């Protein structure tokens, strides 16, 4: 047991002694200060240790040994000890960061800094309300003074505004305290709580004044203009401490007062916090200044914390849960926000787009990434777990508005934070960093601390399997060796992943899981070869690639909804980082992450409605007998459909696919989208007990899929950029999968899975081949290429095989997927959907021909005469996929039988579906049909080879001619560029059908974005920069809250 008085005394003593020591040696003074912080933190930690070993120990301490009313009570419980440790650690880090300032200003600054921390420590420890006021004042006054030290005009003005607002808040607090004392006769908070509610309006007003005093200090929107200016103009080291330590102390004070509040008051504060969270984030969305953005973000975060504490308290949850959630958020926020302020001091650039300078130091960039991602609430950071539980609690208590506000605010937060990250990673900037050891130490240690803590958290978190840690370990380990040559890393990655997949992943899965393991993990591994083509280190690929693949594994093996969601988020994060690596991918990646997060929140909500699962068994196994409600299914489906790029939410898809690195796009398109399929299938399994094929919902889902396929195909036929074409093509193909899944029948699911496997093979094949074309030609515009068949025959063969498979022309496996889709649709009587599917698959010919003709056939361009075949690393995956396609085309049973067996575990195989050798026979009452892929292959070979032999016989001696030896209406061509028919190839088609492809989704989302921005701009106008206006705001805010309270 540590007596907390020691800490306070230590600070006081040090603060007074500083003046003397400073005379002796300034370094010694600074050192003393550091020692004090370290000791305080150590005492906190020791107390934690102590309490852990003796849980029942007395934690209340009375100054001077008297009981409560007579003396000031302090409490040094677990929470306090935790906070004390953290705050003093931060004091130390911040002190180190401010080392130069202290050296410059000497004793005054050191004393003020110590006083500030003393105030914060005191606020945490004290249980006496008047004492709280004293510490609050110490904290505030030392803060003004410290801000004033900067001696710039802005910071002085900001200091004055702060003083005004702070003074007002303290005054309100003090008046409130006086009146409460009038009713209770004591200043001890515990005694107040014990007395319960006093039925008097005046008491309530007094209590309200106490609360509002504290609340104003927490800078709620819109009464926070003073705080914004403060954050923006103060020294960033100081802003960091204010944002973390001061806010933390104030929050804890607010928390201490919570038991006093009546439910209406809690409601008001929760609402006000939520408003603050949402709107501050909304305004932050359009900030261009980094520190201003951080200021809004801090406001939002403290609003969130107030909201969380108040709301949870209102819901009468046990203290421990409230504390765990609040601390989870606070912990992340504490480190990340302070860290970002510190980084702002290092970057020294106000403009967000200038944060590209961070790229000069990859270590700082990583730290920055950790803070930003932590702040957004991605796993494994504690904020993630906090938000997860919050959502569950709100769902369980049906607090829909709070839930919506929380998710909306978080989404906005993701928007601006990721935009910032995008600037830092992608924007080139010539500026310099102001690096020094003292400045680097603080963000570095907090990043390491945050990461380590999160790492242990996810490892120790009850119910999380080891598979959830693999992605992070992969990120960490490959991140550490990221300077190694790409070829080495690739070989290691392939080896490790193959070992893991074969010996650990596959055996732990049921058959359906194995199918997806083959698609997701196997497909990725095969494509990893392509990344080995890079010379040198190719930083930034392998950590995220391996993370992505491991997260696929954890997705499939997930046994609880939480594991599923963590895997989903990690997967999103890894893919985002991979997309962001593309040359011009800043905006596309932002779009991707915003849409993905939106989808993830839908999913989160859906998952929160799900019943509990059985840890230890993969969800895919449990899905057969779990049953979920339709609301949960609806939202989760929405989340998965976004990842699949279904019509309407496909807006992110083309740009993300187009702008990512070519090999990455291949993985995104062929593998990542299948994760959505996995999820969708999982959901459908869970509702299969009461939703059948002829349910309205499934028919609607079927139409959604069909129209996705149709519009995707039409859009693809319009593109001139090969990657955009392929992106829309993927969208179209995923539409077929959605249709298949929507059938809720054995055959339908087999068709969807067959299509998924096929799509992996041919889309990866085409993307790899096209990646080699882009690599060699240096352009993605198809009309700039031509005649590459002579230069890159292997790529041509790959694309040829690919397009035959995509279009569904026999004998390749693509026909199988078409056959399955039609038969399953027709079998269920969905005739019109089958008709539209047929139309879309016919349109596929348009874009496929355009792809292969304009790139490989036609006239070769003179500036591409140097083009040669791609490096072997790009050819290996092509070879793998060609062999795979040939195998399943020749022997369709290799895949159809296992798929049928896998699906059969969930929806029993009907009797009328049977295999007769290679002949798949369908004898349902509604439909008869058959397909013998093997025989088709032989017949095709036969009818192909016989004419070929004839032609070779008759036409043995042909003169090989060159590209301009064409009949050109008795003229001769002069330019390959004008002889190559490529640009806008299907102009006539879009003359007839153009109204289908007007970019409605684009218009809609641009409208949403514009509206958001203009609302945010309008809101931001209340911040005039005038101190008096800000005071007025505070008054108006207070009155509004009071009126809303509705107390008579």
């Amino acid at each position, binding site marked *: 047991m540590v007596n907390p008085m020691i800490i306070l005394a230590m600070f006081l003593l040090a603060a007074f002694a500083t003046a003397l020591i400073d005379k002796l040696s300034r370094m010694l003074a600074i050192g003393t200060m550091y020692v004090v912080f370290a000791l305080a933190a150590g005492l906190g930690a020791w107390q934690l240790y102590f309490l852990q070993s003796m849980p029942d120990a007395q934690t209340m301490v009375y100054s001077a040994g008297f009981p409560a009313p007579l003396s000031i009570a302090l409490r040094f419980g677990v929470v306090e000890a935790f906070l004390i440790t953290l705050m003093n650690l931060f004091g130390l880090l911040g002190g180190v960061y401010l080392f130069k300032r202290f050296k410059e200003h000497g004793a005054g600054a050191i004393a003020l800094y110590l006083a500030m921390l003393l105030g914060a420590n005191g606020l945490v420890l004290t249980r006496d309300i008047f004492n709280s006021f004293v510490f609050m004042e110490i904290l505030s006054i030392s803060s003004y003074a410290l801000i004033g030290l900067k001696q710039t005009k802005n910071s002085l003005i900001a200091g004055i505004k702060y003083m005004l607002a702070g003074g007002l808040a303290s005054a309100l607090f003090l008046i409130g305290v006086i009146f409460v004392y009038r009713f209770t006769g004591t200043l001890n908070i515990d005694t107040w709580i014990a007395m319960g509610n006093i039925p008097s309006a005046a008491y309530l007003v007094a209590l309200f004044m106490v609360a509002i005093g504290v609340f104003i200090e927490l800078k709620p929107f819109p009464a926070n203009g003073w705080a914004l200016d403060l954050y923006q103009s103060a020294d960033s080291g100081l802003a960091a401490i204010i944002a973390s330590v001061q806010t933390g102390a104030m929050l804890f004070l607010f928390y201490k007062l919570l038991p006093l509040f009546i439910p209406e008051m809690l409601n008001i504060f929760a609402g006000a916090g939520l408003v603050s969270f949402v709107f501050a984030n909304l305004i932050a969305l359009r900030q261009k200044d980094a520190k201003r953005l951080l200021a809004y973000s801090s406001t939002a975060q403290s609003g969130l914390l107030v909201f969380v504490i108040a709301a949870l308290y209102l819901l009468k949850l046990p203290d421990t849960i409230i504390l765990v959630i609040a601390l989870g958020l606070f912990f992340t926020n504490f480190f990340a926000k302070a860290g970002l302020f510190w980084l702002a001091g290092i970057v020294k650039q106000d403009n967000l787009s200038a944060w590209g300078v961070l790229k000069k130091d990859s270590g700082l960039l990583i730290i920055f990434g950790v803070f930003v991602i932590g702040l957004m609430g991605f796993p494994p950071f504690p904020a993630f777990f906090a938000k997860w539980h919050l959502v569950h609690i709100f769902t369980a208590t049906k607090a829909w508005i709070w839930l919506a506000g929380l998710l909306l605010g978080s989404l906005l937060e993701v928007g601006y934070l990721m935009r910032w990250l995008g600037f830092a990673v992608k924007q080139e900037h010539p500026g310099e960093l102001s690096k020094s050891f003292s400045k680097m130490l603080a963000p570095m240690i907090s990043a390491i601390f945050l990461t380590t803590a999160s790492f242990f958290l996810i490892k120790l978190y009850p119910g999380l399997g080891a598979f959830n840690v693999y992605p992070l370990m992969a990120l960490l380990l490959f991140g550490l060796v990221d300077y190694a040559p790409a070829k080495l890393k690739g070989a290691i990655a392939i080896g490790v992943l193959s070992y893991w997949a074969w010996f650990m992943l596959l055996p732990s899965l049921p058959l359906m899981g194995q199918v997806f393991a083959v698609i997701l993990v196997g497909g990725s591994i095969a494509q990893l070869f392509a990344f080995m083509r890079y010379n040198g280190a190719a930083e930034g690929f392998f950590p995220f690639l391996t993370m992505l693949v491991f997260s696929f594994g954890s997705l499939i093996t997930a046994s609880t909804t939480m594991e599923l969601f963590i895997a989903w988020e990690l997967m999103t994060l890894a893919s985002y980082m991979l997309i962001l690596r593309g040359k011009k991918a800043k905006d596309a990646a932002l779009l991707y992450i915003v849409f993905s997060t939106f989808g993830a929140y839908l999913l989160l909500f859906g998952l929160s409605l799900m019943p509990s699962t059985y840890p230890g068994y993969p969800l895919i196994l449990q899905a057969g007998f779990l049953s979920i409600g339709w609301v949960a299914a609806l939202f989760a489906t929405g989340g998965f459909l976004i990842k699949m790029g279904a019509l309407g939410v496909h807006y992110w898809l083309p740009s993300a696919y187009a702008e990512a690195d070519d090999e990455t796009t291949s993985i995104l398109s062929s593998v990542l989208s299948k994760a959505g399929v996995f999820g969708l299938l999982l959901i459908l399994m869970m509702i299969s007990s009461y939703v059948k094929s002829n349910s309205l919902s499934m028919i609607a889902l079927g139409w959604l899929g069909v129209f996705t396929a149709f519009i995707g195909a039409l859009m693809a036929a319009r593109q001139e950029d090969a990657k955009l074409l392929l992106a829309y093509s993927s969208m179209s193909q995923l539409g077929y999968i959605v249709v298949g899944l929507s059938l809720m029948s054995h055959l339908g699911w087999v068709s969807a899975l067959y299509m998924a496997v096929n799509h992996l093979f041919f889309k990866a094949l085409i993307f790899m081949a096209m990646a080699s074309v882009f690599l060699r030609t240096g352009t993605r515009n198809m009309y700039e290429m031509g005649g590459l068949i002579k230069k890159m025959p292997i790529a041509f063969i790959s694309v040829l095989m690919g397009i035959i498979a995509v279009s569904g022309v026999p004998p390749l496996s693509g*026909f199988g997927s078409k056959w399955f889709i039609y038969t399953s649709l027709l079998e269920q009587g969905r005739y019109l959907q089958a008709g539209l599917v047929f139309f879309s698959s016919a349109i596929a010919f348009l874009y496929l*021909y355009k792809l292969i003709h304009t790139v490989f056939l036609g006239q070769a361009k003179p500036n591409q005469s140097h083009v040669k075949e791609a490096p072997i690393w790009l050819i290996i995956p092509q070879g793998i996929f060609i062999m795979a396609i040939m195998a399943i085309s020749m022997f369709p049973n290799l895949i159809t039988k296992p798929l049928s067996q896998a699906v059969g575990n969930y929806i029993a195989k009907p009797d009328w579906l049977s295999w007769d050798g290679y002949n798949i026979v369908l004898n349902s009452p509604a439909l008869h049909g058959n397909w013998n892929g093997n025989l088709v292959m032989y017949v095709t070979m036969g009818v192909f080879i016989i*004419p070929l032999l004839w*032609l070779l016989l008759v036409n043995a001696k*042909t003169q090989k001619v060159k590209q301009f030896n*064409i*009949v050109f209406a008795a003229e001769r061509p002069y330019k390959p560029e004008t002889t190559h028919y*490529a640009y806008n190839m299907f102009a*006539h088609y879009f003359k007839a059908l153009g109204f289908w492809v007007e970019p409605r989704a684009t218009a809609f989302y641009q409208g949403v974005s514009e509206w958001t921005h203009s609302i945010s701009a309008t809101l931001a106008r209340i911040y005039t920069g005038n101190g008096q206006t800000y005071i007025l705001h505070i008054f108006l805010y207070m009155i509004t809250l009071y009126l809303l309270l509705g107390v008579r």
Partner: protein
Amino acid sequence: MSITLKLIWAFISLGVVTVWGLTLNGIVQKIFARVQGRLGPPVWQPFIDIIKNNAKRTAITHGIMFYLGPVFRIAGGIGTYMFIPVIFGSVYFSNFSMSGDVLLVMYFIFFGQLGMALGAGEGGHPYSAVAVSRGLAQMTAFEVPFALSVISLVAQYGTLNITEIIAAQQGGFLQWTLFTNPLAVIAAMISMLGMNMYNPFSVVIAPQEIPIGPPTEYHSSFLGMLATNRGIFAGAKLILFMNLFFGGATNLFSLMLKTFWIYMFSVFVGAAYPRFRTEDSIRFFLKYPTAIGIISILLFTL
């Protein structure tokens, strides 16, 4: 039946359809000539042309894909034919129709078209590509009513198996799909106009503006092969239509009779009408025949 015997019969039936298809082509040319008041070429002219083309002494090639284009085309034709049962109830003239159902046939039609388009593409001639783009665009449109009518057949008969579809139409001509599901037949016959590429849907081969379409660069035995395929492919398509809509055929004579009259439908239309532009024909196909097809499906589902 042993596989050898099967192969021999497949060859015989292929020979029959080739001769019949080419003769039909000759007859068509004769009919067009007579409509225009000419004598017209002899009926066997297509055979002479094929011999002549194969007898050319020189040939050029633009590359492997160009060389293989006609092979793809004829393989598509022969393959399509091979997956269709020719004579109902005959084990000898059933080809390899057990490998799949009507879906297989519908998709195998694309095999030749795709290969031809690729070969024409490697020829490097812009007109080839223009014609292919027109052809593909028109194809996406006219396949829709055809697919809808096939779906309507599925709704009607509950099977995709061509033999079973024929079997369902046995027992007097009133059992033919033509009379039991007239709307589907109308949609399919209109789409056949597009497939046969006679007027008014002949913009693909528009002989004067883009010399005869995709095969602009093809000549000699390549052209001979394409001409042969015209016979086989026309025969295969006609037999498919006969099987689906006109009760199939139980002997060679009725096969010839039926296919002849089915073909004459598009020939008569072709002889009488001028030509649509591409976008007009796309609009046409996606309006009336598609609507008819949808109605025919709805009639059988509601």
